[in-house]
């Protein structure tokens, strides 16, 4: 069996890991066209060649604070249910396998992460929260941008 690869990134200052098969690419976003009348965490639309990404401000989803829009931000690109999304991240560190695989959660997780955490993945630098990208786009009741 091929060992599972994980992408290690940082969202809202927290280390997260994403299974590599969920990911299509990591890109620097061009201009983001804002979409009005949307929940806070939907940063807008961004063109990637002839595709249009719906850009999700994951940090806003977690912390409720909108990340200032600027070009050149890193985003993880993924196709979910036929639509392309870009998930904004602070930084990306590595793609690698882990010796121990996915570990169960321990300790008391911050409630804002609880909805997204699937477990813990440890690499050489320490633990990361394992997340699935699909969870970030599930519809939920959220404050709407004023």
């Amino acid at each position, binding site marked *: 069996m091929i060992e599972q690869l994980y992408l290690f990134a940082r969202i809202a200052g927290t280390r997260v890991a994403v299974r590599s098969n969920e990911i299509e690419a990591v890109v620097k976003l061009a201009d983001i*066209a804002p*979409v*009005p009348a*949307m929940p806070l965490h939907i940063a807008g639309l961004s063109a990637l060649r*002839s595709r249009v990404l719906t850009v999700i401000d994951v940090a806003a989803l977690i912390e409720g604070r909108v990340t200032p829009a600027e070009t050149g931000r890193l985003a993880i690109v993924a196709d979910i249910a036929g639509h*392309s999304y870009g998930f904004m991240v602070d930084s990306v560190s590595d793609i690698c396998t882990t010796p121990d695989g996915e570990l169960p959660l321990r300790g008391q997780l911050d409630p804002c992460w609880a909805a997204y955490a699937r477990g813990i993945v440890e690499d050489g630098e320490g633990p990361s929260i394992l997340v699935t990208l699909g969870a970030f786009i599930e*519809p939920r009741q959220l404050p709407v941008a004023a």
Partner: protein
Amino acid sequence: MDDLLADFIQETLENLEALASEVVAWEADPSDQVRLDSIFRFFHTVKGSCGFLNLPRFEKLSHAAEDVLSEVRTGSRTADPHTVSAVLAVMDRIGELAEAVSSGASLPNENDDYLIQGLKKREAKAEVADVAAPAVAAPREGQSATIRSIRLPLTLIDQLMNGVSDMVLARNELSRKLRERANDPELEGAFERLSTCVADMRDAISKTRMQRVDRLFAAIPRMVRDIARDLGKRIELTLDGGDVEMDREMVEMVVDPLTHIVRNAIDHGIEAPDERRKAGKPETGNLRVSARQSGNQIVIEIVDDGRGIDVSRLVSKAMTSGRLTADVVARMTDGEKLDLVFQPGISTADKVTAISGRGVGMDVVRANVERIGGVIALENDLGRGLRITLRVPLTLTIIPGLIIRAGGQHFAIPRAAIVEILHETNEMMSLVTIGGAAIATIRNVRHSMIDLEDVLRLPRQAQEGPRTVMVVRSSSGIPYAMGVEAVENHEELVIRPASPLIMAAGVYAGMTLPDNGQPMLLLDAGGLASACNLPSLTDDGVQRRAEEEAAAERVDQVSALRFLELTGEERLLKLALIERVEDIDASLFGRAAGKAFVRLDGRLLPVAKDCGTFDGTMVTALRLRDGEREICYPVASVLDIVEMPTEPDMLLTRGVLAGVVVIDGAHLEVLDPFALFASMPVDDITEERPTRCVVADPNDIWAQEILAPLLRQAGYSVALGTDDMASQPGDILLCTGAVDPQALPQGKPVIQLRSTPRAANPRDTSIYRYDRDGLMAAIEVASRGEAA
């Protein structure tokens, strides 16, 4: 799986689908030889193919069916309902087997012999006969015509579609780049050609995505027949509009809701024959399913003449289930009560039957229809029937759209949704706010007014000019007015579906990537209206009255062009007299014989105002025409087109001015066209027109190749043939001997040419054809004679 086998299965399943309605139609009219033949052909094909594919069960079934049908064909057996049911059962079994083979499942182990026995049994059971067969009017065309076709995977077509969409984007970008550069007609021509090709290709590819609604209807006759037989009801089914085309994916999406509605109609709507007789209706119920295209929507109507929906029972059910309280019911309108049928868990059916009421209610139907951007509407007539209307979009791929700006952002809106665009400052419009509700009155029709920025919660940007107001018509509701910063452009947009997160807002219909690379959202006109909870009450009376008033007003108004004279006055001239306005090179103006003229299109036109020289290189001029004559009227600039009263406010009877009118508080002089044309010289500057030489025999090679170039070189215009002589007074005829002079048009100077250097007799006035000087002199003399 073996390719051959896969093809066979695919083909069999498709044929089955197409045949289902044929069989039912055949049952209704057993004498229909064409349908019988097509069914027979199906079994024959199946039998033939499965022989070498080694599918014994298929072979046995199809063989038995073929036998029975061939008996029917020879007339030794009639196509009674029993036979038809047995044939249908065999077709169903073949379908099941085919499904099983394609999915790789083990073949359902049922006794085929039972079915085959059923086929062989002659009409023995009497009770089967009293359930009358439903008469089905299915369209006759269709399967009998063979169209050459190949099978393609859908993904390939989607890929093509995407490719063409990208091509359209690239073309748009190229066109923008070309506009920025200096114009090069050759390059533009080539680009035009490319552009046309791309457009044609896009149309063709779009067509591959389209499918006849027939496919949607194919399963209905069979379903109606089976359910009606089960329930002992008689139903006449009418299908209409099967040739309407809609997007393949849309067809897929509509199948389930439509099936459900038809089932409901038969099960709950149309009554049993006894009941219908008691209600004074014919025993046979009518069910009509029709499709038509309306703009960019497909309208599917399902109409039955059954018992309709009992609204009071809906209400009592909702109340007993604790969903509604009495005081809420008291406030509800009839329409809202009827809408309860879309509430989950509420049905007027008393008991759950096998046909409908399997927990899938109208709530699911509505959800499915709305998910694809459709609308469902009910028209209930208790005791007399129900009409259900589904409106679904035709396709959402490429639509003409307008680009609008609001709150500093750009949005697209389908052009079909826009009725009218005007500026806020337009006189025809007035804006009032009452109790927070903004109302825009446009030509006496009152519209709800919303501002796009408010709906989208965007900040209003400060702007210099007036805002733009659009009258928007949504797919279901009534028109409303929407204020935006500006309407910027009109473009063909490739629409892609937006992600569910964005669609959830309810105001967007999709997104598009225009050639500037900035993604843009497509607004949903209906969604915007419902997001603002606009009242949906039509204001028809006012509109009609307004139209009548407007028509009455228009009678004594006339359109006029407002322009600035070279001497600085603003004047008006009736628009109807102005053929066109154009910028003319100042060097084309000149004077001859004391008259001013301008050289246009190879003719000289008199100039109305002799003003000598012009400043600048181009002169703006009005070209006026009184029916026969044309004059040129130079002006400083054209200002506007205005409505002016036919009677001036102050009449002047002398000079070139007819009077003075007051428009927008300004006094404007009105030019008198009568005086204008009267002051012009009657004889146009005809002397300047070159004499035309007409060669009488158009087929003479010498005349074409040698004479005509010589004449043209000498400054004459040349015509070959005498066909249009009458229209040109200054013509001179040239004959080259072969033509009979009597056959020529009379009253024209004729010059006869001969091919010998010497004249045949002294009276011969013809000219040797290579005598250049003689020829030229003769033409000169003739043309002077004609002019005099």
